[in-house]
C-alpha cells in the first residue's frame, strides 16, 4: 500500500504542476459524469474548454472571457492579500455592489452634462465606496475585536437591500415608465465604460485587472508591506517580532480588497451591465474567493485562474445550450475543479511512497 511522507521543503515544481493536474482530473471525472448523463464526454469537454477559444463562434466568446474574467481577477487579487495575512474578507460581493452604486450615482448626478472628467470621478467614487464598506469590518475588528468573516459577510445582505432600494428609489430612471433600475449608462457617453478596442471585450476594468496583477506582484515580492503580509500569514509571532503592526495591516488588507471590489463593481455597472438594477450582482464577489485559492493566492496564478473560471462559465453555457446539459451539472463540474485542486495540493507538501516489505525478520 501507499503511505505519505512529508517533504522536507514545499516543492516549487509541484505547486506549479498541481493546478494543471487538477484540470486534467476534472476533465476526466467530468467526462465520466457527462457520459452517465448520456452525453458524449469528448464533445462536452470540447464544448467547455475548446469552443469558447477556438470554435466557430470564438469571435463572440473570446471577448466574453475578458469581460467575465476581469472582475473575478480584480476582486481576487484584493482578497488574496488579506487571505495571505490571515484576514478573511468574505464580503467582496457587498463591496462590489457599493462600488457600483457609488460609481453610478456620481455619473448619474452629472446627467446629461458631458465632460471627460466624469468617468475618472466615477472611478474614484467606486473605489472609495468599496473601501469604506470594507472599512466597517476592519474598524470593528481593530477596535472591538469582532470577527471580520461574519461582519463582512453580513454586510453583503445589507448592500443587497441598499441596491434594491436604489433601483426602486433614489437612482430609478425617471423616464423608465415605472420599471425598477437606473438610466442605462450606455446611453450616456461621458459615463460609459466602452471597449477600448472594438470587439476585444477590453474595457477599463480589464486594464485595471492587469494593472492590479502587476502591482500585487511587485507588492508581495519587492515591498516591505507585502513581506509583512506574507510573514503575518505564515508566522504571526515572528511578524510581531519583526515589528509588524497588526491593526495597520488589517486596515490595509481589508481596505485594499474593498477598493478593488468596488472598482470591479463600478467598471461592471458602467460597462457590461450598464445600469443599477435589483439583480445587478451575480456572485462575482463570492466566486472570486475560489479564484483566489485556485490561483494559490499568487497574482499570476489568479490571473490564470480567473480566465479559467470565466472559461468554464462561458463553456458551460455553450454546453447547456447545445447539449441540454443541466445547469447543475456545470456547477458540479466547477465544484470538482476546486475539489481536485485541494486534493492534489497534498502532493506539494507530501510525496507518495510505496510501503516496503518488512526486511527485518
Amino acid at each position, binding site marked *: 500500500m501507499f503511505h505519505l*511522507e512529508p*517533504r*522536507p*521543503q*514545499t516543492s516549487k515544481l509541484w505547486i506549479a504542476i498541481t493546478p494543471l493536474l487538477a484540470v486534467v482530473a476534472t476533465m476526466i471525472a467530468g467526462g465520466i459524469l457527462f457520459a452517465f448523463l448520456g452525453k458524449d464526454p469528448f464533445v462536452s469537454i470540447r464544448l467547455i474548454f475548446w469552443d469558447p477559444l477556438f470554435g466557430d463562434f470564438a469571435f463572440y466568446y473570446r471577448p466574453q472571457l475578458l469581460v467575465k474574467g476581469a472582475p473575478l481577477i480584480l476582486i481576487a487579487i484584493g482578497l488574496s492579500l488579506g487571505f495571505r495575512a490571515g484576514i478573511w474578507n468574505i464580503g467582496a460581493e457587498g463591496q462590489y455592489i457599493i462600488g457600483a452604486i457609488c460609481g453610478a450615482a456620481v455619473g448619474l448626478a452629472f446627467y446629461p452634462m458631458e465632460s471627460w472628467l466624469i468617468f475618472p470621478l466615477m472611478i474614484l467614487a467606486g473605489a472609495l465606496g468599496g473601501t469604506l464598506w470594507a472599512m466597517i469590518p476592519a474598524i470593528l475588528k481593530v477596535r472591538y475585536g469582532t470577527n471580520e468573516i461574519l461582519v463582512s459577510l453580513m454586510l453583503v445582505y445589507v448592500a443587497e437591500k441598499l441596491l434594491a432600494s436604489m433601483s426602486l428609489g433614489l437612482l430609478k430612471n425617471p423616464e423608465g415608465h415605472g420599471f425598477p433600475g437606473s438610466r442605462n449608462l450606455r446611453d450616456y457617453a461621458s459615463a460609459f465604460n466602452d471597449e477600448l478596442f472594438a470587439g476585444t471585450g477590453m474595457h477599463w476594468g480589464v486594464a485595471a485587472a492587469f494593472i492590479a496583477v502587476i502591482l500585487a506582484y511587485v507588492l508581495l515580492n*519587492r*515591498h*516591505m*508591506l507585502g*513581506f509583512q503580509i*506574507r*510573514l503575518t500569514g*505564515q*508566522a504571526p*509571532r*515572528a*511578524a*510581531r*517580532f*519583526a*515589528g509588524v*503592526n497588526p491593526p495597520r495591516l488589517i486596515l490595509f488588507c481589508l481596505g485594499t480588497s474593498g477598493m478593488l471590489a468596488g472598482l470591479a463593481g463600478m467598471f461592471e455597472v458602467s460597462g457590461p451591465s450598464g445600469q443599477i438594477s435589483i439583480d445587478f450582482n451575480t456572485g462575482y464577489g463570492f466566486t472570486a474567493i475560489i479564484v483566489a485559492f485556485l490561483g494559490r493566492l499568487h497574482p499570476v496564478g489568479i490571473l490564470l485562474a480567473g480566465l479559467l473560471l470565466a472559461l468554464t462559465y462561458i463553456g458551460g453555457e455553450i454546453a447547456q445550450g447545445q447539449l441540454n446539459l443541466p445547469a447543475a451539472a456545470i456547477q458540479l463540474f466547477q465544484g470538482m475543479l476546486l475539489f481536485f485542486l485541494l486534493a492534489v495540493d497534498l502532493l506539494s507538501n507530501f*510525496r507518495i511512497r510505496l510501503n*516496503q516489505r*518488512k*526486511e*527485518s*525478520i
Partner: protein
Amino acid sequence: MTILLKLEGLTKAYPGVIANDDVSFEVKAGEIHALLGENGAGKSTLVKMIYGLVRPDKGKMTFNGEVFQPAEPRAARASGVAMVFQHFSLFDALSVAENISLGMENPPSRRELSARIREVSNDYKLPLDPNRIIGDLSVGERQRVEIIRCLLQNPKLLIMDEPTSVLTPQEVDVLFETLRKLASEGTSILYISHKLEEIRSLCDQATILRLGKVIDSCVPSEQTARKLAEMMVGQALITPTRKDQKTGDVVLKVSNLTVPSSNPFGTTLKNIALAVRSGEVLGIGGVAGNGQDELLLALSGETRVAQDEISVDGKPVGNLGPNERRKLGLLTAPEERLGHSAAPDMSLVENTMLTAAVRENLARNGFLRWNAAKDFAETIVKKFDVRTPSVNNAAKSLSGGNLQKFVIGREVLQNPRVLVINQPTWGVDASAAADIRQALMFLAEEGAAVVVVSQDLDELLEVSDQLAILNEGRLTSPVATASLNMDDIGLMMGGGAQTEMEAQHVSS
C-alpha cells in the same frame, strides 16, 4: 546481568539524510544507559524506533529475548517501553489525574487513579497532588507528571529525552535519586542528554552516536567530560574565553518595569530593575515560566511599556516598537526559533528581513533589496558556520543548532548596542553552543551590553559577569558571578525574599 534490549544493524534513512546507519548496541536490565551525541546525530530517530513512532528500514530489535517490532507507541507500551519526551504533552487547564487518565488505554476510576498516583509519587519521592491543575505547576512538577504517567505502566525500559534541561540543580538531584531507585529495582533507563557531567554521575554505560553511526561506547565515570565531548563532536573542543573586560557606561537600563501577564497561565513582571554596562554580560537565570518570555517581549518591543521604564544609552524607548528600538541598537533573540525568531517556511534570505532590514539597510523606501539580503544571509552562514545547502533553503529545513546559529549570527552581525538573548544554546549541540557563547563574549568585548537569559546554569556561569535570577516575575539584584557557586545559585532560584537576602549577603 541479562540483556533487556538489543539493537542489531538498525538503519533509517530520510530523503537526503541517513538518520541511523547500522546502529547496534545493547541495554542490560537495570542499567542506566546514556545515549550521547550532538544534535542531528540520530538519537531522537533511534529512540523513536524503539518507541514505535518510526519504523526502521533495516535491522532487528530484540526486547526481553523476543523479536521486537512495535508498529505504534501503543504496542511498545504494551511490551513495557515508556518514554518521557523533552516537550510535555499536557493540557494546562486539566488536573494531573485527568491528564494522566487521558493517556491511558483503560483508565481506572478517578478515585482509584488518584490513589495510585499518590502511591507511586510517594514511593519514588516525587510528591505530586493529583488534583492540581497543570497550568499552576512548575516545569519540574510537570515533568513529574510525565514520569509518573510512565511509572504507572510498570515499564521495563524507560526512555528519557533531555530530562534535565528544564530543572533546577536541586530538582535534578531529586530526579537522579528516582532514576537510581528505579534502576536498582531492575528497570532499565535509556537516557538521552548532552550534559556530560550528569551522564558521568548517573549512567553506567554510554553509547556515543555521531552522524547516525555508533562511534564508541564507554563507562562514562571513567572518562573526563572533555573526553566525552570530544568523542561526541569528533574534534578537539575550544572552551570559550574572553579577555579582561573593560566595562563602560550603562547602555541598557530598566527600572520599575511592571507588565501584567497577557494570558492566565503567564507571569506578571513586577518591578524589574537592571542596568547593563557596555562590555558587560548580565546573566538572568531561573526556572522556565518565571517571566522570561514576558521580559523578552517587553525588551524587544513586542509588548510596549511606559516610556521611561526602559532606556538605551539614556534614551527612553519603552513606548517604541521593535524596529524603532532596533534603530537605536537594542536587538533581541527570543527563545522559540521556529515561528518567533524565524519564519519556518521562509528562506534564510527572507528571514534576514525579519530583523535586519533597518540596520543592514535591506530596504529602500519600503522596497526590498533582495540582493543585499542574500549577501547578508551568506555572510551569516559563513561567519557562523551555519550548515545548509543554500541560503534559499527554508528555515525549517535546518537542524535546531544550525538555525540557532543563524538567528544569533543575524543579530550579532548587526553590531548591536544591546543584545538580549533568551536560551541561546537550548537544544544546540556542544560545539555549536561553544561557538555561540564565544560569539556573545566577543560581542561584549567589542563594547556591546549583552543580556543572556538561560536555564542552563553552567552556561550562565561561563558567560556572564553578573548574575540575577528571575523568580515569579521578580528579578533579584545582580551578583558578581565570580563569587558564586552552584549551591548559592540553586538557593537563589528556589525563590522568595530569603533568597534575595542571601544573594546580597554573598555579594557583600
